[in-house]
């Protein structure tokens, strides 16, 4: 449910190093988050090139019943976004750590990722 090689945030997002390209990290939401949201029907994401700040809301995940913000786990520049989610938002539910990724960003400070939670630390917050 919570892969060991990923880092996690209290906003129920994961960060994978590297992202789609060297120097970037990939961001998505956790199994817990997709389960809590229910069927996701619409995803809005930041634009490629956006400079985004850790903790800020840059997009939305909308399910049949509610809306949840997409937060930035570490400051940086958006270098890619998952365009497939435009037509297939359900990928966030069916494959949150794979094809359901949200966006890639180049961290301003690569070490910031190390400060995020490990899988076991994240899981402890869910209990």
């Amino acid at each position, binding site marked *: 449910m919570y892969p060991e090689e990923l880092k996690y945030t209290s906003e129920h997002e994961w960060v994978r190093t590297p992202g789609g390209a060297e120097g970037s990290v990939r961001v998505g939401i956790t199994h817990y988050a997709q389960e809590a949201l*229910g*069927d996701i*029907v619409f995803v809005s994401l930041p634009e490629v090139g956006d400079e985004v700040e850790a903790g800020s809301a840059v997009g939305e995940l*909308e*399910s*049949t019943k509610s*809306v949840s913000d997409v937060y930035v786990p570490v400051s940086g520049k958006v270098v890619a976004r998952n365009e497939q989610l435009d037509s297939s938002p359900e990928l966030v539910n069916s494959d949150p750590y794979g094809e359901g990724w949200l966006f890639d960003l180049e961290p301003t400070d690569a070490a910031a990722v190390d400060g995020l939670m490990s899988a076991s630390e994240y899981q402890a917050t869910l209990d």
Partner: protein
Amino acid sequence: MRRSPLHDRHVALGAKLSEFGGWEMPLEYPGGVLKEHAAVREAVGAFDVSHLGKVRLRGPGAAELVNRTLTNDLGRIEPGQAQYTLCCDASGGIVDDLIAYLHGDDHVLLVPNAANAAEVARRLAEAAPAEVEVTDEHEEWAVLAVQGPRSDAVLERLGLPTGHGYMSFATPSYDGAEVVVCRTGYTGERGYELLVSSAGAGPLWDALLAAGEEVRPCGLGARDTLRTEMGYPLHGQDISLDVTPVQARLGWAVGWSKEAFWGKEALTAERAEGPARVLRGLVAQGRGIPRPGMRVLLTADVPVGEVTSGTFAPTLRKGVGLALLAEQVAEGAEVTVDVRGRREVFVVTRPPFVPAHVREG
């Protein structure tokens, strides 16, 4: 919080539970709302809606009491039929919307909403003559809804009657328990609602799910997306004490020529004058999904009302909703909805947003 007699079964099925009208009920089962929604539109789904109220009126003049208090004209139906009706207060505001099952002149069963059942019972008991007994049987009965084009096949497997007319009911027994099988629902599909004693609910639910025909258990999440696609109002959201049947365009559920019903004077005046605001449908032109409380504006930044219900319509794959809008905003008008700071375009559209199939066959 009150629980359905099927609570343990829902937990065993892995349902997500949620509070609704003071009851803890299934919101969705594993697989999610979209699959449940599609099952009802294309095949068949089973809902536990035991949170719905049950208020029984018995004694000489029971039907007469209902007819002179609630809005609809019971004279329009025969024993063995049910009717959508409204309980209004003196100002015309809607205390609740409910279904009246007419068993006979001396016996009517009302099915109000969970949160309002006690209040409806209280108002009727206060108005009742000595010979009419009003009893709140909320927890004595379960309500199971079987909805979708294949619901007849499911009921037939259980030996239950099917094919009776829309809004009419039969009273067979199942496994020794009395069941009321009514051709009603809240989804827009052909289907039935089954009233059964709380003790008999478990075996009946198990049999429905085991009937083959791929009956999918469905929760209140899908019930909401299904009813919103039909534009059916939900009390507490689209209609309330602050909204009248004239504003909600529920005049068809009012027996205007009746001698009396609660709110008649106020409603007759409002009807003659024309309502200041009207409950209308909205269909998204872009990606926006309306949600209750969002502001509706004319393109020129003029606020004209508020969204009361809204969701992603799975059948249409776009946002739809209901909104209380200033009377002059007509069908076909283009409005915008303030979706968390974004201006999303919607067209005012007469529901249902997808075709209803309740009367077919």
